[in-house]
């Protein structure tokens, strides 16, 4: 029924890292034939229909490696120069599942969609597999030889430049120092397309020094987000979501909640969570901030742009609320806002006495990057760069368009590119070197506040990749230094003496290195400078375009990751594409509809994009996701979406004003996983304001829904032993996709591709239903995670003709995949539409190396079979067997975590035994906000939801 169970310890060690067909030369083919002959012969000998299958135990046992039992290792993944601590599950030496590291201050057990999907990136068959020299396959030795000659000949290296992504690795810093020591004239440039420049400049402006704000959302009662999607794309850490969600969770009507105001152009995940959302063009936010400052009495009243504007009332109420909560309020500025706004935010926080309470500051080594990159480009253009070493990143694709990086890089005599994939930059480089994936190599990385973690590998590099540290060491003359030694020595140097080794081991185990956070700094903003900067701002007119990172491909680096490409955007629900997001009014103004292609011109550049109408988007504003339209990223991401970097310049990397839009007569097919966006008045997501909740705590229950549920035959009593159930707190859930990806990784869920998504055949076992309510122009949005509800009276079970889906005594709706004949009757009869059918063989194109990502504890379903969520029954069984072995019959609550629950940054999903009165899930289900959907059908679902609450400002209610 399934494909080879990947966990079976049957697989030649040689096969573990299969080489491309290209290297399968004559001899190996002959041996292959021999082997086949031999096995055939054996089959013949054993006069039996059964094909001979070998078991190949390792000749020498591996320490603490028990075949079939997974091992967990602590490591860290960096994104945009910020690390998150992770625990990675490895089956027989194959990392298969990423989980957050509970001990890491900025993970606390949670992981984002990007982290979850990174394991697929490791096994990406399109990854860079070999050293390339001028387009020809080469080898590390050849490069080493070249480097020796080339770099030792180099004196001070005044024509040598290094370009890397943001460096957040102490060991790399050390090696960099070494290198720059060797080449004192050389320059090192860091560049991330999703840049922090404005924030840094803002800090510079406010405090005169480079500091980074660390927010403490758990301490804030009133939060204002200035165009900052701090819960998702702008968050940099899942820790923020944890803190925020903690203040949304209420146990009873007596509890309190924080209040979130947001001012933004695009409808973001954070905007959907907000209690008050004011949509305005990003370009208008500076004015808004200036007015807020006036309203708060920081600036002299007077020319007040919003003076006779409906938004005035909003502003006034907001200002009063922030004042009222002085010391418990927080203003957060988004990375796309100019320095002045960041500075103003710091100023306001300080004025309200939030500094040191809801926001603290740490020193940061970061410096603005775009300016530096621009300088480099100029040098390249002028031919003053002879050798360019690019350690990671993809500037040829994601550098600001006006720098014409890919053009000038050709003027550089020697370009060396180290990359996980041979991307647009790698193709242009003289030398391309395969970089090791973070799960393959030793390293270390700093989290948001500087806390360092050791990044330890779970597997040998699949394609002989090396790290930036190793490459750099090689370049600066230390030939075969291995990353392990470099990293280890770098740290042992800090722990002198005997217990250095012990500390090292402990840090490896914990995944965090204590006392490495950057020192806090007390900084006072310079009011005069900020006031001047605010005054200098002028509202830009006309259509604006703003660029934001994609929820699927980030800056483009995940473009070849199928899981992420197929994960629907949290708001638009688009897959495999980006689009030009417009407000309904603006779309009407241009006379365009979804899927119609428009041409957007700004600053003398022009791109064509399909339109997607986003209710709640600011008028006169277009939002473009970065990271699509890759041309050299592999077969998955190739041709997905449109390249928006083409419109992005170093002058206006975030918001371009004065854009012009012209219609084309072409249309473009966009694949979305949700076609209808209104709840049609059905009580699916139940929502109320905190006040309403206090007045009528039982608002979530419709009086008649539980009464007159009549059942002819006696009900099976589920009161024995474990009874699994789940509660999902809609008040905490932000709809970030982490659960969707975690589920995909845990349960071997295939991706189906854009065409199939358009046919409505996506396979996600848990989906995030996003509904809009209220006026089309300015709606509220709610998200509801829906997976199999494990109904006690499951409609699917009674209709299956072959009894392939049955109920377990523990209340699970079991699937026996191999019994399924695929009538799809169960899916038709499922009111929640959570069953997924393998319409085609979605594993057909899965290559050997990708199979290593499969979870061996879950069957890989074949074509023609129905599948669905099982509450991660494999995890349940494993823990039950463990408990039995350890002589504990009752499982401790929280011992079993479903994949979605475990990764959820908002802790919105709670799973457990509803038969145990002490369990958290029982506690939640006791709450008066708890309800089930479609209760009137008497399906008796085991998954229930906690009604959503908003906490609007009474003044604005």
């Amino acid at each position, binding site marked *: 029924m399934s494909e080879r169970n990947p966990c079976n310890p049957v697989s030649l060690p040689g096969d573990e890292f299969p080489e491309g067909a290209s290297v399968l030369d004559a001899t190996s083919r002959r041996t292959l034939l021999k082997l086949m002959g031999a096995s055939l012969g054996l089959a013949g000998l054993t006069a039996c229909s059964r094909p001979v299958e070998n078991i190949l135990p390792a000749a020498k046992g591996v320490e603490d490696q028990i075949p079939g039992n997974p091992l967990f290792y602590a490591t860290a993944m960096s994104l945009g120069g910020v690390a998150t601590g992770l625990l990675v599950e490895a089956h027989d030496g194959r990392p298969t599942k990423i989980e957050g590291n509970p001990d890491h201050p900025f993970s606390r057990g949670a992981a984002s969609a990007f982290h979850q999907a990174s394991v697929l990136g490791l096994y990406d068959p399109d990854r860079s597999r070999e050293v390339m020299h001028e387009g020809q396959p080469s080898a590390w030795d050849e490069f080493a030889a070249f480097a020796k000659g080339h770099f030792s000949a180099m004196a001070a290296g005044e024509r040598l430049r290094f370009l890397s992504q943001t460096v957040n690795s102490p060991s790399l810093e050390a090696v960099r120092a070494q290198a720059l020591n060797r080449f004192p004239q050389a320059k090192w440039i860091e560049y991330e397309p999703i840049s922090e420049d404005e924030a840094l400049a803002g800090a510079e402006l406010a405090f005169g020094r480079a500091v980074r704000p660390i927010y403490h959302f758990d301490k804030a009662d009133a939060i204002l987000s200035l165009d900052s999607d701090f819960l998702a794309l702008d968050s940099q850490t899942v820790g923020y979501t944890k803190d925020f969600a903690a203040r949304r969770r209420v146990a009873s009507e007596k509890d309190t909640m924080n209040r979130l105001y947001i001012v933004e152009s695009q409808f973001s995940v954070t905007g959907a969570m907000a209690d008050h959302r004011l949509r305005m063009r990003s370009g208008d936010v500076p004015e808004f901030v200036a007015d807020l400052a006036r309203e708060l009495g920081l600036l002299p009243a007077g020319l007040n742009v919003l003076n006779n504007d409906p938004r005035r009332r909003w502003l006034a109420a907001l200002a009063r609320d922030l004042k009222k909560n002085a010391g418990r309020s927080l203003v957060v500025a988004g990375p796309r806002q100019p320095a002045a706004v960041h500075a103003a935010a710091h100023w306001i926080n300080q004025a309200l006495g939030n500094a040191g309470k809801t926001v603290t500051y740490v020193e940061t080594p970061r410096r603005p990057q775009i300016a530096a990159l621009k300088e480099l480009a100029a040098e390249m253009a002028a031919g003053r760069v002879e050798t360019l070493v690019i350690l990671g990143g993809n500037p040829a694709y994601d550098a600001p368009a006006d720098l014409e990086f890919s053009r000038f890089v050709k003027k550089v005599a020697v370009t060396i590119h180290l990359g996980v994939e041979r991307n647009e930059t790698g193709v242009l480089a003289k030398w391309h070197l395969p970089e090791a994936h973070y799960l393959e190599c030793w390293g270390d990385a700093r989290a948001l506040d500087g806390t360092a973690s050791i990044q330890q590998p779970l597997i040998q590099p699949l394609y002989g990749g090396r790290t930036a540290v190793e490459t750099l060491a090689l370049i600066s003359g230390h030939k075969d230094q291995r990353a392990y030694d470099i990293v280890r020595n770098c740290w042992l140097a800090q722990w002198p003496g005997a217990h250095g080794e012990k500390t090292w081991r402990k840090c490896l185990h914990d995944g965090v290195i204590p006392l490495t956070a950057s020192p806090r700094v007390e900084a006072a903003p310079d009011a005069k400078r900020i006031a001047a900067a605010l005054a200098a701002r002028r509202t830009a007119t006309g259509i604006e375009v703003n660029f934001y990172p994609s929820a699927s491909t980030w800056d483009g680096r995940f473009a070849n990751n199928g899981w992420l490409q197929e994960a629907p955007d949290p708001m638009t629900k688009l897959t495999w594409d980006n689009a030009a997001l417009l407000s309904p009014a603006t779309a009407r103004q241009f006379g365009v509809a979804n899927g119609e292609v428009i041409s957007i011109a700004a600053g003398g550049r022009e791109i064509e994009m399909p339109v997607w109408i986003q209710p709640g988007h600011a008028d006169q504003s277009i939002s473009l996701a970065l990271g699509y339209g890759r041309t050299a990223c592999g077969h998955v991401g190739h041709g997905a979406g449109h390249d928006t970097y083409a419109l992005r310049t170093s002058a206006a990397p975030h918001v371009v004003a004065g854009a012009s839009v012209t219609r084309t007569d072409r249309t473009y097919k966009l694949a979305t996983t949700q*076609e209808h966006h209104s709840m049609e*008045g*059905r009580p699916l997501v139940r929502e109320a304001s905190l006040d309403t909740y206090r007045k009528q705590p039982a608002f979530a229950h419709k009086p008649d829904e539980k009464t007159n549920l009549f059942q002819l035959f006696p009900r099976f009593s589920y009161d024995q032993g474990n009874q699994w159930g789940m509660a999902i707190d809609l008040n905490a859930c932000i709809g970030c996709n982490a659960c969707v990806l975690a589920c995909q990784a845990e349960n071997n869920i295939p991706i189906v591709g854009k065409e199939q998504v358009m046919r409505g055949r996506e396979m996600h076992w848990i*989906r995030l239903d996003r509904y809009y309510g209220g006026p089309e122009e300015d709606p509220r949005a709610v998200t509801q995670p829906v997976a199999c509800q494990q109904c006690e009276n499951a*409609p699917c079970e009674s209709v*299956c003709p072959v009894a392939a889906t049955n109920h377990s005594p523990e209340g699970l709706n079991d699937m026996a995949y191999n019994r399924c004949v695929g009538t*799809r009757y169960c899916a038709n009869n499922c009111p929640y539409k959570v069953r997924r059918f393998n319409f085609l063989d979605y594993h057909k194109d899965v290559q050997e190396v990708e199979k290593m990502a499969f979870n061996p504890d879950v069957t890989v379903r074949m074509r023609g079979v*129905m599948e669905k969520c099982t509450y991660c029954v494999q995890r349940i069984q494993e823990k039950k067997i463990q408990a039995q072995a350890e002589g504990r019959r009752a499982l401790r609550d929280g011992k079993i975590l479903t994949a979605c629950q475990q990764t959820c940054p908002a802790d919105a999903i709670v799973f457990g035994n509803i038969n145990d009165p002490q369990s958290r899930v029982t506690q939640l289900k006791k709450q008066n906000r708890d309800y089930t959907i479609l209760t009137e059908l008497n399906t008796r679902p085991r998954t229930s939801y906690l009604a959503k609450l908003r906490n609007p400002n009474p003044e604005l209610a």
Partner: protein
Amino acid sequence: MADLAIAQELNPALVLGKPGYADVTRKVAGIVEGRMPRVWYIAIACTGTLTLALAAMLAYLVTTGIGVWGNNSPVGWAWDITNFVFWIGIGHAGTLISAILFLFRQRWRTSINRFAEAMTLFAVACAGIFPLFHTGRPWRAVYWLFPVPNPALHIWQNFRSPLIWDVFAVSTYATVSALFWYTGLVPDLATLRDRAKTRGRKIVLGLLSLGWRGSARHWRHYELAYLLLAGLSTPLVLSVHTIVSFDFAVSVIPGWHTTIFPPYFVAGAIFSGFAMVVTLMVIARQVFNLKQFVTMKHLENMNKVMLATGLIVGFAYATEFFIAWYSGNRYERFVFLNRAFGPYWWAYWTMVCCNVFIPQLFWLKRVRTSVPAMFVISILINVGMWFERFVIIVTSLSRDYLPSSWGYFRPTPVDMLTLAGSFGLFLTLFLLFVRFLPMISMTEVKGMIAADSAHSGDRP
């Protein structure tokens, strides 16, 4: 004479031109023994091609997956089950005519029952394809759907599932109607045998006619067996489509979960069945010039039946709407409004026009008795009935409880070719039938002549 004329007027003869027994035999058997007209060869060429197309499509389906059809989530069933219900429906007229009308002594059934029964069998054959091939893994379904003891698994089918009831209902129906049909054929096969020229023909027909010699004993057994089988098939006519309707009625999907389905489906089935009989009969009657046995009276009666069942169906549509409103169930209400005014409005109104409005023309005797008119209308009715099943299945599924999961079904070319192919198979079988077997029951027609001439005085 006058009263005879009146009698004729009130009750027109079911056989015209007062043929003798020999004439009947010569006429009917002649068709089978003589050469087929060119049009027959052209027809079978076309239908044969379509049948091959069906085979090709099914092969493609099995090797590639259900994905070659337009089915999706939420629309798990679409044209596959639509075709299944449609063909099963077609199958109903036959048994109804031969069994129920037989028991009710409706003499006008005689010259069309053979024809209709044959059609039943072929329709059921077509219907049988879909329940098997709509499954994701037919190679498993083919034996897991039947209650075969399984020593390796020790698990049985889920007898709560309407799909299993289907398996029994349809297979029983197929068996009984086949027997019924064959029993009726025996005397005629014997007649053919006796007229057979070549030895091969003699032997084949001889075996098939089971040594029928037309002795009084044979006749007694024959009449008895025929009566019993008629009695057996009568409940089946009602049960089969009732059970098919349970596939939907038993579910929780608004638009499916309806108690009215059994009668509604049976009426619809008879409706479409008769329509199909008329369509084919009109052609056969023309091509093989059977006007004297298939009189206008037969056709008119069938049209009357269509009018009646059409009204029942229309009434059912109305009732559904009323109940949807009356029940006060928000989902039920939505589904029916959605049928009429949602994205599938075109399908719904096609259905209503073809099944409710157009048949009303049969109130007019002029239309009822006009061959071209009834030909067109009967075809439209079949179109309408196909759409009825499409509307019930697809529109209900496409928008059920959670708006987030709503979706729109679009058929693929494979869907279309499969449907066309099933028609090909049906017609091919039918053409072979008219080629090799007497399409009118000579025995019974002779009986009729005897009866007719009885009250018109003179013996033939």
